[in-house]
């Protein structure tokens, strides 16, 4: 990597950070409890819009892992999400009526909040439909992982997005508040992912899964990216570049081993394909607030008109993290 391109990346990082600082005015505080954040607390950062029904389980899931504080940006919800979150003692909430798209899908807002509140904390940046699974998550709390990462001098942890889906149409089993969504969306694709290295940022570009198989089988380059680096020991100089797919400085994207070994990694179980999906897709199409002209949602809407079933006879039924480890979707690395 030449000095020049290193310098260009540095400039890019500064630009994203300044952009985040500039965008801070778009956030209106609703319930700020950041004074309760203790020095070594584990933090979750989220942007959301109209996810009221998912929130109880989402908060419970991460509280059970040992997350101490949630920092959430509400993008103009009107279904009671804001009121619900404002009541939670471990949530700090901001709201914004500004464009989700022009905040680069919330990245600018969260970059600002992380810059301000997350310096020297382990941070997990997830959507309300993403559930973090890591090696030994059934017996060891999240702090065991972050302590181990600290001891190993590892600053970022990869967790690939794993799309979960039900058998049959999405709306056969309705999702109820507080319910574990993976009682409904039990299935996933175990081995149809494509891996390419991104030379500029040094991250891997992962595509595939049921969405590529069903919605993008004729233009796979448009299939959504599944590589994610949600868990980072944050420093205020860091910046997410595009969603949580990649970060700067680029060393943080080096979450994979290049000499044949396996680094430790996890998965983000993605509970997108529930009965709530059709309404969501329709709403997002109306708002035109999603990535690349919402072509992703356009593809979904077209496919939804024929009531898709993502399930196939080779779909795997989710059991636990060990299953994902054996299938090669995640790895224990040298954590034992």
């Amino acid at each position: 990597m030449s000095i020049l391109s290193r310098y260009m990346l540095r400039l890019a990082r500064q630009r994203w950070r300044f952009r985040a600082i500039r965008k801070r005015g778009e956030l209106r505080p609703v319930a700020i409890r950041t004074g309760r954040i203790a020095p070594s607390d584990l933090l979750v950062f989220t942007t959301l819009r109209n996810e009221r029904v998912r929130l109880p389980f989402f908060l419970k899931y991460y509280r059970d892992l040992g997350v101490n504080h949630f920092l959430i940006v509400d993008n103009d919800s009107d279904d009671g999400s804001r009121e619900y979150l404002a009541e939670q003692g471990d949530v700090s909430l901001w709201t914004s009526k500004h464009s989700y798209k022009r905040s680069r899908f919330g990245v600018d807002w969260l970059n600002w909040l992380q810059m301000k509140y997350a310096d020297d904390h382990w941070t997990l940046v997830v959507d309300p439909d993403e559930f973090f699974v890591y090696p030994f998550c059934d017996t060891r709390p999240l702090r065991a992982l972050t302590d181990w990462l600290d001891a190993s001098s590892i600053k970022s942890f990869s967790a690939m997005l794993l799309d979960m889906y039900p058998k049959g149409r999405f709306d056969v089993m309705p999702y109820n508040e507080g319910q574990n969504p993976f009682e409904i969306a039990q299935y996933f694709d175990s081995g149809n992912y494509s891996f390419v290295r991104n030379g500029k940022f040094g991250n891997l570009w992962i595509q595939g899964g049921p969405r590529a198989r069903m919605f993008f089988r004729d233009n796979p380059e448009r299939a959504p990216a599944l590589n994610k680096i949600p868990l980072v020991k944050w420093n205020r100089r860091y910046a997410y570049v595009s969603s949580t797919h990649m970060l700067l400085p680029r060393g943080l994207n080096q979450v994979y081993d290049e000499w044949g070994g396996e680094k430790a990694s996890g998965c983000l179980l993605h509970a997108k394909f529930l009965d709530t999906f059709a309404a969501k897709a329709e709403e997002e199409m109306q708002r035109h607030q999603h990535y690349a002209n919402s072509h992703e949602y356009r593809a979904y809407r077209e496919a939804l008109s024929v009531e898709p079933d993502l399930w196939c006879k080779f779909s795997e039924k989710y059991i636990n993290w060990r299953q994902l480890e054996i299938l090669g979707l995640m790895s224990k690395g040298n954590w034992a």
Partner: protein
Amino acid sequence: MTVGIVMLCHTALERAAQVARHWAERDCPVVIHVDRRVKKPAYQKLFDDLSDLGNVQFSARHACEWGTWGIVAATQDAAAMMLASFAHVRHVFLASGSCLPLRPVEELVAYLDSRPRTDFIESVTTEDVGWTIGGLDFERFTLRFPFSWRKQRRLFDSYVKLQRRVGFRRKIPDGIVPHMGSQWWCLTRQTLSAILENPEREDIDRYFRKVWIPDESYFQTLVRQVSAQVESRSLTLSKFDFQGKPHIFYDDHLQLLRRSDCFVARKIWPHADMLYDAFLTKAGLGQAAAEPNPGKIDRLFSKAVERRTKGRAGLIMQSRFPHENWENGRTSAPYSVFQGFAEIFENFEPWLGKVAGTRAHGHLFAPDKVHFAGDDPVYNGSLSDSAALRDYNPRSFLTNLIWNTRGERQCFQYGPADNQTISWFMACDPNAQISVITGAWAVPLFQSNANFSDIRRQAALMQKLELEYLSILRSAFAKARVRIWSLADFVENPMEPLQTVIDEISPRAVRRLTEAPRLADLAGFGQFLQNLRNQGMQPVLMGDFPVDFGQSNPNRRRGRPYLVK
């Protein structure tokens, strides 16, 4: 007689206090050293927590940066204090604040009482250690290390390099034979006092002050001078990973630790409440005479290190993306690629599936779609049959297929009409068994009903592509098991090559092939090739195919080749 515990602490002091109390209440005196870098209030709290115990003392504090003399100085002071203050101590056990006793204290005391003269300390000569990180073993004793390995790595490394280049060597004092080993030991009063009261100690200390990581060599070296009986192993269960940092134990290791029969384990995650509860509050149930047996734990951790350094062969995933040729196996299992067979045999795929006991795919890299066995629209791992998805990343497609079907050998057809971007990858893959009948692509053309000018153009293209493919297979970099026959040679005697290939696929099937696939009708094929020549195209890949093949020899049974019974 009893055992005295020297504890070196720097973090998780409340756990250290818990363990110290456990020892002290069972009549094992404890001397605690707290790293000088620990802040005063934390130290004071530890001090106050343990103030009710008469047999707990605190020694003079040193700053213990990893790999420096401070740790040895701290150990010396604490051990001297132990020997001076507690006369009934016979063995001194060096432990850290994150160590946890796994067996009842009485068992440790009894174990040591029955070995009153034995020093338990791992002590290995520098020639024999295989575990040093960074390749420094003997040079730890002969170079100078003024820079911190953790904070000034670049300076550290270049200074080492410089010393090597100029041939600098420190003189090792007379009588010192460098030994190394685990920092955690258990020495007798006699041995320990002989080391600490050595009249030359000042000189020796001055030398070791500048040795790198002296805590792994100071006592390990000196014990050889004074001890009558060295048992070269540590009583502390402590495993190191490939970066040289200790593995950590969590609640889910409880059963493993119980069954290890080790006396003390390091290092325990401070929040592993279940472990601390199980081993400190409840009475242990170990068999009194059992020898420590860390075998199971050793295996667990060495497997983890192997996973980290070697990984699973043929797996490409989010945290394993090897550089080319560093894959340790490009694919996870052997597979077979057939070129030209499906063209000259009428029922090759079902036949192959039957004799090889596997599912044989069609042309996986065909331009229209992926022809999985049985024409499935999806295959193991939910692989799609979409040609666009496959061509988006053919390498991932193939590695995925082989990985997803671990345990079942994959066979598929390939040819010049297929996506050729994968050919280098397969040719350089030792798992690939590639069998090629050159020129067989002409058979479907011969059987087709196309205009001859189109056939000629198509033939020229196929020939060019196959020649390129062959040159890849024959390149010096190819690692696949490659077999190539020309069409003419193959049809002359088809059974022998088939037998060889099938034997390799399923070596346990000892019986010979009893059923052969049906050969396509090649009567007139020789003339077809001649026609191509007459049109100005030179078909070179079929070998010397006789013009009158299938005609001059009316007695020859068409279809099933002759079988040796």
